[in-house]
């Protein structure tokens, strides 16, 4: 039990790090758009896990409404970061792409953190938003019609 509890975050961290630096290692290859959206949603989600875990180590407090507004702002920002135009710009440059991946983790972290600061366990609400937007973007955000 104890070791499993320690192992999980570690495994997640390793995955995240591999994913963040993937573009540097593999160069300017571009996954299909749907997968790419999912990959970024994963980074957001993983960031969220750490953000939530971080808050839970401190005494909890019911926070300022500003935290709630931060959650909404970060949600919108994460979607803007998923615009294929942004991908097009960064995909050609592995360093930028890595920076974007780092950005997803940070935004995810902040979202989970802000949600938990507003109210303990509200981080789940943030993660729900991330999962749903991730799945929906993967179904066709920024994709042309199949026959076009």
């Amino acid at each position: 039990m104890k070791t499993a509890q320690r192992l999980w975050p570690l495994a997640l961290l390793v995955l995240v790090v591999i994913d963040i630096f993937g573009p540097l290692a593999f160069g300017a290859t571009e996954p299909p758009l749907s997968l790419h959206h999912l990959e970024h949603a994963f980074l957001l989600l993983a960031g969220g896990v750490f953000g939530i875990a971080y808050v839970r180590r401190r005494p909890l407090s019911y926070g300022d409404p500003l935290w709630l507004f931060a959650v909404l702002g970060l949600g919108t920002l994460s979607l803007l970061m998923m615009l294929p135009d942004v991908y097009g710009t960064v995909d050609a440059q592995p360093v930028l792409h890595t920076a974007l991946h780092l950005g997803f983790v940070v935004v995810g972290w902040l979202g989970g953190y802000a949600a938990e600061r507003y109210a303990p366990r509200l981080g789940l609400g943030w993660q729900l938003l991330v999962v749903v937007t991730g799945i929906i973007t993967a179904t066709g955000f920024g994709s042309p019609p199949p026959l076009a």
Partner: protein
Amino acid sequence: MAAPLVVRERVDLHAAEIGLTPRRLVGMTLAVGLTLIFLLGMAGGIMKAAQGNLIQLQPQTFYALLTLHGAGMISTVVLLTAIALWYVLQEQLGLKPEVLLFGVVAIVWGLLAAAVAVLIGGFGPAWTFLYPLPFLGTWPAWSTGLFFFGVLFVGIGFAVFCLDLMAGIIRTYGGVLNGLAWDTWIPALRRKDGKVAPPQVIAATMVAIDGLITVAAGSVLVIALLAHWFSPRFPIDPLWIKNLTYFFGHTIANLAIYVSAGVIYAVLPAYTGRTWHTNKVYALSWAISLIFVPWAWPHHLYMDFVQAPWLQIGGEASTYIATIPATVVTIFGSLLLVYRSRMRWRLGSTMFMAGILGWLVGGIAAMLDATIPFNEVLHNTLWVPAHFHTYLLGGVFLFVLGFASYFIGERPVEGPWLKSIEWCFFTGLVGFLLMFYAGGIEGVPRREAVQPAPGPILAEIATGFVVLLLIGLVAMLIEFWLRARSSAAVERERSA
């Protein structure tokens, strides 16, 4: 282990400083919202009069009004039901008015943006703004963008409501599963203090979760549309965005009904003197709705032959599964609550019971339409506005009026003035709805400025009923205003 909670006081002080009490916020929102409903209802009456050839309207003006009416009504009803549910839960869940104020302001801003886009810009692709229509019309590009920003704001406002509700539920009941009363089924979830979520909290939890899912879909939708508006290079797959539009539009309108169910659970007992208790059946019915409500939207797309068959069949099945259990437990529950109780029949309770009837009738009419063989005949006829006006205008909106009456305070005795208001209002309402249904049966298409026969004659008759309905509504608003003034006077006296 969870660390001890530190409750911060700053927020309360802040609210007190600006004098924002829950009652004030709700009173203000009701005033704004009910006025908007009246104005948008006038727009509805003008559309009917134009379809009945009683007045002349440019088609562009008709479609702009149609867009404003649809988007405006849905957003306003979402706002009004949300504020009602918030009010009945705020004390118990420790919700703060200044948080909701932000949500209310966001929705009102969104409505204003949409109104400017429509009234000044002439934006008119109907409230479902199906791609690519918003980008092809006669209206200027700014109005398209502004309208989408408006939708974004409405979504953000609703998200504030959902997130804050969720926070309050977690704070009070320890988690969303307890909010859904799954502890009635799963012993491991039971709380030491034996506290079980009452039905209105179950409804609120379901709404908060499905509301967030809906808003997430809506934000992808709006960002995609805004991206395309900003740069036409941003590609959009019409079928994808149509699915997403209905995911968002259908579900948010649908959720207004579930929000109202929570309000019924909380308010009806005040009139019957009996309370509603959570049991396993409630918990299960609402769990089913929670899971299936976000999957019912494909019933809007039966005519799209390229749609995947599993979505069509899944949509049909989900419509039934999502609707029946929660509707049945709520309607049975309220009948049991009223049966042989010493129900006090006042304006509020009358509205609630009439609304339950409207919900039932509209629900049945809707399920007929969501059934594929019927849909082949009824699709895009006036049957569609017939059924949704039955449960939105004749259901959800009546719950809002019932709540308003309860919120302001009933009269000890109701005189003939109130009875005549009710008669006027309900005659207008029923007549107006019947004309819609008649048009549907005759196959008159919806959303047409100029209708084939017998559309115009039905619209002409309907206009008369709309006038009655709106007179009844105005009279009711005046009644509310009079009561609010006298109860404010009472409060002033008490505090003096």
